[in-house]
């Protein structure tokens, strides 16, 4: 199946890691230059900085940083990444110094450790040290590096600097800002400057009065990628309101998955505890989303956790509307409805995985040979050709994750060609695609993820078989660039919903 999908290498300059050089390949490729990193001889790619060369070696040799972010330009201002380069008169910043053949670098020499401890001593001098009430605690780079490199005590005896107006300031509905915690790494300023190009965050004043603020007081913070600010803010200065005070981060389990909020298929990490999703965070993928995800996608976990989501089978035996029941009751009902129907139409939402489409097709054709299959998107676009990027970054107008994939299986859109004479419609969707209005159908069988409101709005619903949302199952999506991406289950479903293969077994 996946052979039919071209894995295109798309040129996504904005999100690929521009600064990470790619090793030369081919027969003429010369052997890579070498440098000595903490006594180990390591290879690096020409064009690497010391930071990147260390990054290639592995996580253990990572050099501490605040202002450096692989997706942003180099600032070199936090002075945390300084390393000792032999023959250099001063300590050098690893983020900005290019690696050279034969270079000897010490990242943990006494001089380096003293410098790092000095940086932390300075940063912590005016830091409020409110970790017990700070949401970042546990994933805070200031905290982590302080445990590793910081001075054991501070001799700062002055009163701490306070920014009364910026202690809890809502930059927007999504982001809360606290300048007292800020280490002025300016990742956020560079992000709005270079990535979103909205310039909605700026630094005001200089020196000790330096203060982050919004570029336009009226507009506030308005870019569509504000969650990223909270992701890469090394301290708890910028926090994401949706997650703020919801959960201590050390309780969270991190599972990789794919965002199903739009056709882009951004790689995400699902942060959950006890199978409750608390937030999404981006995972770096140069081919898809780079380091970022949009706010809409970030908040799309709310559909999975929706309290009005139907998580038990429904059946309408008496004709008074569907009522909750068990699988033992709904399966025979659906089977008999299908058998008694003269013609059956299956409408697959474009949020179904490739595997689901395949097994639905196979299973329903066996049960009802007269089956017609159509797909339905219903999120503003009809086919993948109509999908347009909403900005220069990631957001797409197609709000379902698998339109291209469903098309690649040979399924036609719902409104292509007249369909008539069917008396039963099965609507399968995973909560993202719209629900087609098929008023002429006598029986409507819903399959997948639906909310109470959605079911109430439909007529003739005879049965509902609850399914699993994207984060609760494994599967494959094909994104708008034609890239097939498989994912595994991130959380266990907390209701009676079952995946397609398990439901099929029951018939």
């Amino acid at each position, binding site marked *: 199946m996946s052979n039919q999908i071209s894995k295109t290498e798309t040129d996504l300059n904005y999100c690929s890691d521009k600064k990470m050089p790619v090793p030369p390949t081919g027969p003429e490729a010369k052997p890579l230059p070498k440098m000595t990193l903490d006594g180990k001889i390591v290879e690096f790619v020409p064009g690497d900085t010391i930071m990147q060369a260390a990054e290639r070696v592995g996580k253990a040799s990572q050099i501490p940083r605040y202002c450096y972010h692989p997706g942003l330009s180099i600032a070199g201002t936090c002075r945390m990444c300084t390393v000792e380069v032999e023959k250099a008169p001063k300590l050098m910043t690893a983020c900005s110094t290019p690696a050279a053949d034969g270079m000897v670098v010490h990242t943990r020499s006494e001089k380096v450790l003293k410098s790092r401890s000095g940086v932390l001593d300075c940063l912590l001098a005016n830091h409020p040290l409110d970790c017990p009430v700070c949401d970042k605690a546990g994933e805070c780079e200031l905290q982590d590096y302080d445990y590793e490199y910081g001075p054991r005590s501070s001799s700062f005896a002055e009163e701490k*600097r306070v920014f009364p107006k910026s202690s809890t300031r809502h930059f927007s509905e999504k982001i809360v800002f606290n300048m007292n915690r800020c280490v002025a790494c300016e990742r956020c300023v560079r992000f709005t400057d270079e990535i979103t190009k909205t310039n909605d965050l700026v630094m005001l004043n200089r*020196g*000790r009065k330096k203060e982050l603020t919004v570029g336009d007081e009226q507009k506030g913070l308005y870019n569509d990628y504000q969650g990223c600010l909270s992701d890469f803010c090394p301290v708890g200065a910028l926090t994401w309101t949706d997650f703020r005070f919801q959960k201590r981060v050390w309780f969270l389990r991190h599972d990789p998955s794919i965002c199903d909020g739009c056709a882009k298929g951004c790689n995400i990490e699902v942060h959950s505890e006890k199978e409750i999703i608390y937030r999404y965070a981006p995972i770096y993928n140069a081919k898809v989303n780079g380091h970022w995800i949009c706010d809409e996608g970030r908040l799309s976990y709310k559909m999975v956790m929706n309290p009005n989501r139907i998580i038990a089978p429904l059946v309408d035996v008496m004709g008074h509307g569907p009522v909750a029941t068990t699988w033992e009751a709904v399966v025979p009902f659906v089977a008999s409805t299908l058998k008694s129907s003269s013609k059956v139409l299956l409408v697959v939402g474009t949020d179904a995985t490739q595997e689901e489409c395949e097994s639905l097709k196979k299973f329903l054709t066996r049960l009802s040979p007269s089956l017609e299959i159509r797909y339905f998107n219903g999120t503003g676009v009809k086919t993948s050709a109509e999908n347009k990027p909403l900005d220069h970054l990631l957001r797409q107008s197609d709000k379902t994750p698998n339109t291209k994939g469903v098309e690649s299986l040979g399924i036609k859109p719902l409104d292509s060609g007249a369909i008539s004479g069917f008396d039963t419609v099965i609507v399968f969707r995973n909560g993202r695609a719209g629900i087609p209005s098929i008023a002429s159908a006598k029986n409507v069988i819903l399959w997948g993820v639906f909310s109470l409101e959605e079911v109430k709005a439909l007529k003739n619903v005879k049965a509902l078989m609850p399914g699993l949302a994207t984060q609760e199952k494994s599967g494959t999506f094909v994104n708008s660039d034609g890239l097939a991406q498989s994912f595994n289950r991130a959380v266990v479903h907390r209701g009676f919903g079952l995946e397609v293969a398990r439901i099929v077994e029951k018939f």
Partner: protein
Amino acid sequence: MNDLVITKHIHEKDSFKIENYLKHDGYKASARACTTMTPDQVIDEVKKSNLRGRGGAGFPTGMKWSFMPKDAKKTKYLVCNADEGEPGTFKDRLIITKNPHAMIEGMIIASYAIGAHVGYIYIRGEFFREARMLEFAIAEARAKGHLGNNLYGGQHAFDIYVYRGAGAYICGEETALLNSLEGKRGEPRLKPPFPAQVGAFGMPSCVNNVETFAAVPYIINEGAAKFASLGTEKSGGTRLYGVSGHIERPGVYELPLTISGRELIDHCGGVRGGKKLKAIIPGGASAPMLSAADIDVKLDFDSLMKAGSMAGSGGVIVIDESVCIVEMTCILLKFYEHESCGQCSQCREGSHWLSRLFQRIENGGGTAADLDTIATVCGHMAGQTICAFADAVTGPALSAVRKFRSEFEQHIHNKGCPFKKGHEHRHGEKVPGVAHV
């Protein structure tokens, strides 16, 4: 008393006007350089003269010019640093108001040597009158054909624009100056790349001080050897010393680089009111202090470096016995706290920390451990940041503690400033250690 390079004719009436300058062989050097010399010859001449940058770092000027790429097609910029912000320094203002054409002529020669066609004068925001005078001088030079296309019948074209800063001290640092010139935040850039590769507007640029440019016509007119002979072995020419503080005759003096601190004070009439000397700051506020015992050191770049201070911008501040060193350092640190651009962690937090600490000691809240803390914080800052600002902060702070430790101990022991009666505090708050933003 000596050959004067810059200030020879400044006492004449209307010395800033072009007529006066032309009367004294003005614009002969630029004409000579542009018509009879190749750019490389000009650079060689400046190299041979041992002219070192007068802005503070003392980098050899000819060397700086030779770093500029020789590619003729590339746009290059010449920038004059007239952002004279160093406390205790006021020599560039004298040149701008009394002899601006020497500097303009120097810029023409430099532009010819490096192949720049546009020059910017980045002038300190507070110098409003001076900026007007410069614009007047540039207009004069333009009217007389010293600026414009086809200068002196040749192919060289050059024009100068005056750009006023907004009053930040850090914009005197050359890369912060370039950022400010581009309309960005005045924050020093990471080096490398140096301005000679990537400077103003991303193009190769050469930044020199006003005094450096003003010395260039003399080198071309009188020859490199003569200029070099005026100074020391490694540093040619004379230097403008701005002498201020407790001195009988404060002002700007053009003196050879071989002069010592004591000779300079004597030359300026001695310490005011016949009081005893306590210390001098030899090169603008950023230079570490020299106590009265150390002032026999020669005030050139290398000797001062050896003495643990620096020649800096040539602003000599004379401090007599009536001054409380703690209070004075406190005022200096307040200035630095205010002027740190806030990019680098240590400088932003450290200058604030030091300022608070000194204030607390001055106000009587100091403890014995504070002196160690000063050394620790200075250790965090010195040599660890993008630009030399952090070193400039630690210079006065460390030298004050090192050379006048007893005064600090007195403050700590007496729980107050011994130079003040009662609870009189002229600077800072009465309550020790109150932070305010």
